């Protein structure tokens, strides 16, 4: 790996972590020039070095969490859901504002996906009410794509529902795919030939097509590599900065500082 390649990879990893790379890359370049040694010997792999640096600069990412300021876009009130004799959701309330990201966490079977499906209107609760202001985009945990259609055809099909022309839908889909480190979705073949992670990227891109106001994302990063996972959060923050209300079901408890608020569905946990 040449110095330039290493510095480029390092800069990309910093950007993925929402850290401005200019000063840190310049500092690393100076150090490498002065030492005359190979970057892998001095710093190690660029991704690992970026993680170390960002962790040490954790205060720089603390600004990520924000208090809600926009109007409520999603209001779920007193949601109760039973499967047989088992009550999965016990009067859950969820409110998400424009420009806010909420993470839903909880143990397996605690009703995270059920709550999201209720909020999307895909299943009915036993009682409770959901109010959505604006348009809705939903990314399921799996499924949601057609095995024998290509990514471009998915973009056209979903985009047509949103009122986009073919050209617009394809362009928007390809741009969103590139932001998730999937640069050429048009040449990837039909969905059944995609890897699990790439298929989830397709799912995520489809959720955001047509610029919906509320995004419901059910563990959309299944199968993502680490870089794509970071790209995913970059995309979530772009949506949030654009005034979208974003809900992410997640089981990665170590990443909760990425969301503005957290709803824990674990039985007995404070709501």
């Amino acid at each position: 790996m040449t110095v330039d390649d290493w510095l480029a990879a390092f800069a990309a990893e910093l950007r993925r972590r929402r850290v401005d790379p200019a000063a840190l890359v310049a500092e690393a370049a100076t150090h490498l020039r002065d030492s005359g040694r190979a970057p892998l010997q001095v710093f190690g792999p660029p991704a690992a070095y970026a993680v170390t640096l960002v962790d040490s600069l954790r205060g720089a990412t603390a600004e990520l969490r924000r208090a809600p300021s926009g109007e409520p876009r999603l209001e779920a009130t007193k949601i109760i859901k039973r499967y047989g004799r088992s009550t999965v959701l016990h009067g859950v309330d969820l409110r998400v504002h424009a420009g806010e990201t909420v993470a839903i966490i909880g143990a397996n079977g605690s009703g995270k996906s059920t709550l999201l499906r209720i909020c999307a209107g895909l299943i009915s609760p036993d009682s409770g009410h959901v109010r959505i202001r604006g348009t809705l985009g939903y990314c399921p945990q799996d499924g949601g794509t057609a095995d024998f259609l290509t990514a471009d055809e998915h973009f056209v099909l979903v985009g047509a529902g949103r009122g986009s022309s073919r050209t617009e839908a394809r362009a928007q889909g390809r741009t969103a795919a590139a932001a998730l480190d999937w640069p050429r979705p048009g040449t990837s073949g039909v969905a059944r030939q995609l890897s699990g992670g790439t298929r989830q990227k397709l799912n995520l891109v489809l959720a955001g097509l047509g610029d919906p106001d509320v995004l419901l994302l059910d563990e959309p990063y299944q199968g993502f590599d680490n870089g794509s996972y970071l790209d995913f959060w970059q995309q979530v923050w772009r949506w949030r900065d654009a005034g979208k209300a974003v809900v992410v079901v997640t089981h990665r408890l170590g990443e909760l500082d990425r969301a503005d608020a957290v709803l824990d569905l674990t039985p007995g946990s404070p709501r």
Partner: protein
Amino acid sequence: MRILTVAEMALREISRRRGVLILLALLPLAFYYSRRGEAYWQSVRFVSLGIGWTLSTAALFAGNAARTIEPRLRLSGYATHELYLGRLAALWTVGLTLIVPYFLLIRLDLDVRYGAVALILLLTVAVAAPFGLALSALLPRELEGMLVLLTVVAMQMMLDPETTVAHALPFWFSREIGTYAIENPADPHLMTRGTIHATITLAVLISMVAITSTIRLRRRPHMSLAAQ
């Protein structure tokens, strides 16, 4: 028009299932030649049953494959009728393409009333597509749907056509119009009865597809959607 977009994508999906297409094209041929020898007059009815069975099967699988993406399409703005009408349009297109070579085969191979043969084939395509889609809505597991399809076609072949149960089967009309196509002199009431049966069957099946789709993809009463 969004129905056309759904139809186009459904056609693309079906056209990529090469194995299904080959079976779609060849299975009716086996039905045809199973009766081509000593009972050649039955081969017209059998080829239509073969087409009905294969197209219903294709529709069953297409309907099941669409179940995961249709809720997403509803959320993205499609009306329910756009989804099932688009899929039906795609299946009818496949069926129309399928019957052309079989009509030509009968035209060259048999001395029958060709107008009646064309009508049987057209009505078979018209009925088979919603029949498969309705089954996929009622029996979401493919194996169960396949077993029901097999049972229906087997009963259609074996039951005495004069019984009430036979009248309730979706492809009963093919026997009536098929008899008109080969008998000389022919009873015109056979054409009338067959056409009426196919029309009613078609209306019932399309209604079933519409009702089941509307229920499955309905807006739930707990949801309140307001424009931004």
